[in-house]
């Protein structure tokens, strides 16, 4: 009988312990986390991009429109004076597809530590070790496949597909596929693969967080900048396709590195209010 009472006491005791461990604690500790929602926005000439609208003019003077953008961002790191936080969720890979609105927000449900942050580093595309053939088997990510013979073992997927139309020199509306990924150069019967992913570090200011906050952090892709600065992108010269044109891909990559991305207005939502 005594044994039964002890068991009962043990069960009740463990239950109380489990319940009390869930109680909110207002004391801030070094392990406090905030929620992070990263919004991926696509801008044209400083405003939200209007898709399927032939209203944009690039640096070369080409009138163009964008129909869709699909791309990978990876290895996002937040850095501050006292803290560096790397996202581990989903292997720190996120796929954005303007045809799938829900992909425009990446909710970091694992949270990030409460700290002051002064920059965000992102990788455009996928680094070699994350870009292995067959990594993604489910759509939509799997539909980003980059052919093996022009990408090799570590060139499994497009970094980005940006599709649209431009008005050519003969005033005809022509399709273009601004597709970026691993490059290939053939010389003397040998194929050399060139990793084109890049990291970019963007300044920001996140401070005075408390643990019930949600940080809404907009990462903006400035579409027109991918077609200018430092390389002027003339669709009439480059043509509609670039996947096997490493020189053209490099031009686009250099443009993207320069000012293809920026940080929008950061919002901090305090759920205590």
């Amino acid at each position: 009988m005594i044994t039964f009472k002890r068991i009962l006491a043990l069960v009740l005791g463990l239950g109380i312990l489990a319940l009390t461990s869930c109680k909110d604690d207002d004391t801030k500790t070094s392990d406090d986390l905030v929620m992070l929602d990263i919004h991926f926005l696509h801008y044209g000439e400083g405003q939200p991009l209007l898709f399927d609208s032939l209203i944009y003019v690039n640096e070369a003077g080409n009138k163009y429109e964008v129909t869709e953008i699909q791309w990978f961002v990876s290895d996002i790191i937040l850095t501050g004076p006292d803290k560096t936080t790397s996202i581990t969720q989903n292997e720190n890979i996120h796929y954005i597809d303007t045809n799938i609105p829900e992909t425009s927000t990446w909710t970091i449900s694992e949270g990030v530590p409460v700290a002051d942050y002064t920059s965000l580093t992102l990788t455009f595309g996928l680094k070699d070790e994350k870009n292995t053939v067959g990594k993604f088997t489910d759509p939509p990510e799997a539909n980003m496949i980059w052919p093996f013979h022009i990408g090799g073992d570590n060139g499994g997927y497009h970094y980005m597909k940006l599709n649209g139309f431009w008005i050519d020199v003969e005033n005809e509306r022509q399709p273009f596929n601004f597709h970026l990924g691993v490059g290939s150069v053939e010389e003397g019967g040998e194929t050399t693969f060139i990793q084109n992913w890049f990291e970019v570090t963007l300044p920001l200011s996140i401070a005075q967080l408390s643990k019930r906050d949600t940080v809404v952090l907009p990462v903006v892709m400035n579409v027109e900048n991918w077609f200018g600065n430092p390389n002027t992108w003339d669709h009439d010269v480059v043509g509609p396709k670039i996947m096997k044109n490493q020189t053209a891909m490099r031009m686009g990559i250099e443009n993207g590195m320069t000012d293809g991305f920026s940080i929008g207005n950061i919002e901090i939502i305090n759920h205590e209010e």
Partner: protein
Amino acid sequence: MKNEILLSAFLGFLLLAGCGDSEVQKGPTPYEFPGIFYFPKDLNIPEDNLTTEEGVLLGRYLFYDGRLSGRTHQDSLMSCSSCHLQQNGFDTGFDHPEFTSGRPRGLAGTFTPHYTLPLVNLVYNTNGYFWNGFIEASNPQYGSEAHHVPAEPHFHMKNIESIVWMTIVDPNEINGSIEQTVQVISEIPVYPPMFKDAFGSEEVNIERITKAIAQFVRTIISNNSKYHQYIEGKTVLTESESRGMELFFSEEADCFHCHGGFLMSTYEFFNNAKDSVFTDPFDRFGVTGDIMHTGVYRAPSLINVELTGPYMHDGRFKTLREVVDFYSDGLVISPYTHPLMKYISTNGVQMSEEQKDDLIAFLKTLTDHQLLTDPRYAKPSDLN
């Protein structure tokens, strides 16, 4: 004393919960889908119709049983297999003994709105069914006026199950009634016990009929073509096939952006520059209402493409050569053409005759000969 009672009740509950009733009632056996490393892991199986061995077996019988039409006269039999022939990769194909044009006609003699799509690897498609993607998990619609399915809450338009009851009542297909079908199937002695094995009782109803057929269809998987064997390192391609593969997966021919991946389709929707005038009410625009979806249709899987002609939603191309010729120099621009059709200024990719031969040689490596006679998918031998 009070504590003893509480403890006894607690332990008793644990005991009961731990035992369950698995020893008492044996349910249907879960069906195990093969783990194919290069195919999607996300299977399109609705939560209310999990696949079981018994459900699949029943579904296979119904798939092949012409009495699914709700009729018993020899001239009035029709089932899924009437149009979807195993020897043609579960498509209608060029050489259908009855539908010689490759376009099926229903029991009332009228043509289906579109040519058929093959019933292969559907379990991996999470992006809607039909050429226009009308049947899709998020479709809130009940019934379909166009297909004569009543707008009743149990007639959802979400998955393969929906396609079965549409097929039964559609005037362009079986042109029957759900009541007739249920009546006839329930009176065939072999079926009530099979329904009991699959669903727990001998009751025959339309929900169970559609669920069983959908379960069977989901098990039809094709991954044993020469190309898939090549991926698995089990065989090599000829020089022509290799050149064709390189063309397929290059921007020169640029097939892969729509038909890429190991399923040979993205299952996405495109206007592939076939037309400049659009009159078909069953295009993607008919589903979404988005003007940019005018003349837009699904990019079908190319697995078994050698057998699944005529091609395109309207069967306009009778041979693979005609398809390749079209992509080489037959494109027509419209405001709705997808930008992946980037060779529009030259009406196509401008392939040489040798390149066309190579591309077709590669396309023929996508034929899964084992599927065509696989007994798991064949008509049950005891079904007349």
